[in-house]
């Protein structure tokens, strides 16, 4: 297996063998409405390599039982797999210990966990939480709920017209009242890479904790949580070429162990009587009930896959595709790209004169092109740019120039229909 993967990166030149990579993803050979599928919606959810699918299938067939319960061989094996996956995630993020890795359902549940467990116990009325103008609803609504529940204040860090995060304006929002900064690593709409390391350093000066929404960020540039030195970092499996139904909340172990449980149930307790229960330390404290067992195995397999190809190689490839796509799309008359930050990843949101994103999406789907149209769960950001919706093409490790050419051709076809 290792040998096969090595072939994907040519030993002599470091070239990325996109053909071999694409062969690993069965969905990429699908046809859609008589055309080869050009899948440009990886930012919503990525396709899965065969290796992940086969690993999960194998685990269901041969290694499946509930975890942390049975004293029999099969349950021990399932538990070992699950805990091995935790270790794989910890190594991938450079966490100090696997105990800092909590498996959740997705990033939404990870952020809600922090808002409930940390927020309701360590924040109080009048404390300030700072988010940015380009957050996904998953990193807005939990804080609004907390605002209504306990009276925290929500502050919004602004961005400029190109979509750059404005560090100086952010710094002005910081004060001793700032207790938490919750910011995305990369904008899911604009592709902007946010200077999270500087944000952490600035937040530290006022003693604020920092949560990073790593949904898009970890996929495109990875993360080293020790070097970053934030307090929480959340990401989801399905955007990282793994299964849906599993997400990760990393937190500093001391903070996690100071937090009360979020959900109560089996597996998270030490003892239970009808009078009182006592709880285990992290991660078990935050994993009540049967966890996503095989999803964890699939996520670990996806991490092995991208690690073997090389996160750096993937980033270089995606950056090349971004440049190519930016140039191709800019050449289409009437097309305006929304989000031109200095540092961005492979996401292009755009408007096309006189054609609503939903119409674009329906029309180019007839040419086999899959993109997302809508507000991308970021309505405040849409308002910021004065648009109700955008069309978004987002790229993955398997996107090639052919996909971009097919997109450009389909957009010209849509323009033709609308005259």
């Amino acid at each position, binding site marked *: 297996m290792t040998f096969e993967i090595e072939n994907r990166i040519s030993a002599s030149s470091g070239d990325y063998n996109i053909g071999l990579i694409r062969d690993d993803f069965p969905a990429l050979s699908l046809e859609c*409405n*008589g055309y080869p599928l050009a899948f440009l919606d990886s930012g919503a959810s990525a396709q899965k390599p065969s290796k992940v699918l086969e690993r999960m299938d194998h685990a269901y067939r041969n290694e499946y039982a509930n975890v942390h319960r049975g004293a029999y061989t099969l349950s021990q094996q399932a538990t070992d797999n699950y805990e091995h996956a935790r270790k794989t995630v910890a190594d991938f993020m450079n966490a100090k210990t696997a105990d800092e890795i909590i498996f959740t359902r997705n990033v939404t549940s990870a952020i809600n966990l922090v808002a409930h467990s940390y927020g309701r116990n360590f924040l109080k009325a009048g404390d300030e939480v700072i988010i940015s103008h380009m957050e996904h609803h998953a990193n807005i609504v939990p804080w609004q709920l907390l605002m209504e529940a306990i009276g925290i204040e929500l502050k919004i860090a602004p961005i400029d017209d190109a979509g750059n995060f404005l560090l100086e304006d952010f710094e002005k929002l910081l004060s001793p009242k700032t207790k938490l900064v919750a910011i995305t690593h990369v904008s899911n709409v604009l592709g902007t890479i946010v200077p999270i390391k500087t944000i952490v350093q600035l937040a530290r000066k006022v003693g604020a904790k920092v949560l990073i929404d790593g949904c898009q960020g970890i996929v495109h540039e990875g993360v080293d949580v020790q070097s970053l030195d934030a307090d929480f970092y959340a990401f989801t499996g399905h955007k990282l070429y793994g299964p849906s139904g599993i997400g990760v909340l990393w937190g500093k172990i001391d903070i996690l162990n100071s937090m009360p449980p979020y959900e109560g149930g089996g597996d998270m307790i030490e003892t239970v009587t009808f009078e009182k229960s006592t709880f285990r330390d992290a991660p078990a404290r935050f994993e009540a009930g049967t966890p996503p067992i095989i999803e964890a195995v699939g996520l670990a397999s996806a991490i092995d896959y991208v690690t073997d190809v090389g996160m750096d190689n993937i980033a270089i490839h995606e950056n090349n595709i971004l440049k190519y796509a930016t140039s191709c799309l800019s050449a289409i008359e009437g097309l305006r790209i929304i989000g031109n930050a200095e540092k961005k990843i492979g996401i292009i949101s755009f408007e096309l004169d*006189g*054609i*609503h*994103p*939903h*119409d674009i999406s*329906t*029309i180019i789907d*007839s040419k086999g092109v899959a993109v997302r*149209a*809508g*507000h991308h769960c970021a*309505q405040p950001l*849409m308002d910021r740019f004065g648009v*109700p*919706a955008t069309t978004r093409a987002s790229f993955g490790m398997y996107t090639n120039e052919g996909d971009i050419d097919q997109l450009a051709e389909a957009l010209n076809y849509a323009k033709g*229909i*609308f*005259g």
Partner: protein
Amino acid sequence: MEDSLRELYQEVILDHGKNPRNFARPQNTNYQADGNNPLCGDRLTIFVKLGADNIIEDVGFDGRGCAISIASASIMTDIVKGRSIEQIDILFSIFHKMCTGEDFGKAPSEFEDDIDKLMVMSGVKQFPMRVKCATLSWHAMQAAVRGDEIASTE
């Protein structure tokens, strides 16, 4: 697929989408409602002047949306003028079935012309994800005349 697409985006719809009729707030309206499609953020407001006998005397709309939702609102506002609330309910029921490809039986003869006009939207039945675009303005219309302020497609 291309035939279905051409049927959906036929000239009449593109024309209504680009040059919507009744795209303004009429004078002296007494009812209005917003129609929201939370999936895409599209939003229309329907303004109605309802007479004492429950007849729509005037109607208009504004807002932002895709070609399908704007064209549908444009066609709807043309049709409902002079109709009663009860007649609008019947028309919407027929139109909804048209959009989802259900058999709407034999419509009462008084609606024949209206149904001919609405038929241009029926191509949407090939695109289930777009049915809500076509019905958004109708939901808002019903909400307006019932005195609700907001209609949602969800």
